[in-house]
């Protein structure tokens, strides 16, 4: 998609009030307190240790830093991370 048609696409989808996670494939991060993180719309895991989780999304990379990170479940659409979360970075 050229930048011109991309901007048109964005305008149309904004006008149609399509959520960004559907139109752009934006990553959806739902944090519950500091202990729970629900992530949707990612491509895959790049790295996972108990202190660092790196995910590839459509537009950027998502880095979660913390302690005792633990993936409660992991499917193609959704994953849940529990543990002590310290940072969420978009790289």
């Amino acid at each position, binding site marked *: 998609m050229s930048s011109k048609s991309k901007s048109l696409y964005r305008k149309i989808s904004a006008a149609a009030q399509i959520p960004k996670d559907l139109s752009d494939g934006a990553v959806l991060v739902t944090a519950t307190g500091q202990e729970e993180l629900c992530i949707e719309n990612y*491509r*895959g*895991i*790049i*790295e*996972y*240790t*108990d202190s660092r989780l790196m995910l590839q999304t459509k537009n950027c990379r998502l880095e979660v830093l913390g302690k005792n990170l*633990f*993936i*409660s*479940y*992991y*499917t*193609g659409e959704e994953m849940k991370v529990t543990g002590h979360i310290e940072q969420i970075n978009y790289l």
Partner: protein
Amino acid sequence: MVQQLLQYTKGYVRIRVTGSSYERFLNMCAKHQIELWDLLEAHNAYEMNLSIRGFKTLRPLVKKSGTKVRIIERYGLPFFLHRHRGRKALPCGVLFGVLLMMFLSGFIWDIHIEGNQARTDDVIFDFLTEQRITHGMWKSRIDCKALAAEIRKAFDDIIWVSVKIQGTRLLIDVKENTDLALEEEVDYGPSDLISDVDGVVQEIITRSGTPVVKAGDTVKKGQPLVLGQVEILDDAGEVADYQYVAADADIYVKTTYSYNETFSMKYIKKEYTGRMKKGVFLTVFGKNFAFTGWPVSYEASDVVKEGHQLRVTENFYLPVTVGKIECREYELIEKTYSKEEAVRKAKESLAKFLWKMQEKGVQILQNNVKIETGVKSCTARGEIEITRRAGKRVERTLGVDAEERIQANE
């Protein structure tokens, strides 16, 4: 919770993945829609759970990602069954259990009645027992429609009934008529009212019949008050005929009541010594078993039983009662009332008597009761002036005119 149960029934394994490109392995699992849960990094390896079905499709992914997979734990029902495949009694037991449940679910285990206020549960249960509807009966023997109709027929004040079987419960929902039913007037035949008391008529209001006394008259017991015949006059103003009715009137008569009560100054009082023994008892099918562990050696004692009947469901009582049993020793002590005590007791019983009279609708005008205490006894004696309703219904005595007519006919 539901998901865990589902995972357990389907079975899952915990695997350990070793190798450098474990991320690739994880992503490929996601792509192939193999669900992973409880991922954990441990000792340079990754441990995770996945379903049996997922594990079976894992081989090409493992090969592609160049990792090694080892099962470290097996969970779930399929593994449990496999482990216990040699036990013949287990499936038999399960089968027996299922069959037993199916068999037992063919009975009624609970009868629930709702919506009844004036009619107690017990009354309805007695009726159900009469109809041979009891706990533990076959469900198929109950005809809900017929039972509902029977209940409606048996209880006038129940205006709506719903009977349904839900599982092993018989639910009876009733609606009672909350409008106060009018008191049905008893239809008396032609009858008179006679006095049942000696006194002076205070007030007389006649509803039907002919009054023969008026206010201020003195009446004796047995004297007619209202006759059940009404004169029918002809044009000349003479009696042509009599109409016979049930006499009905409110008659208030002033009368005296002689009150006389005597009681002995000596009395026996029961006093608990405070010594008691405790135990438990069990009643099975009307047979008593007491576990007291003591021989009763008291001269005089009260035995108090406090039982609790066992039940399976809300209203399904078993013929088994368990409870506490207590044996309390007492002594009988002879005592004498003091003068003040005797007077107080006499006054109390008089007050009780007066209150009971007033409850019955008697008006107390004057109270001349005097209390005398002697050495041996105490007496309360005197006249109480009261106004009370009088009138006793008797079958109509044949009047003179009637007799004459009978003779004339003959």
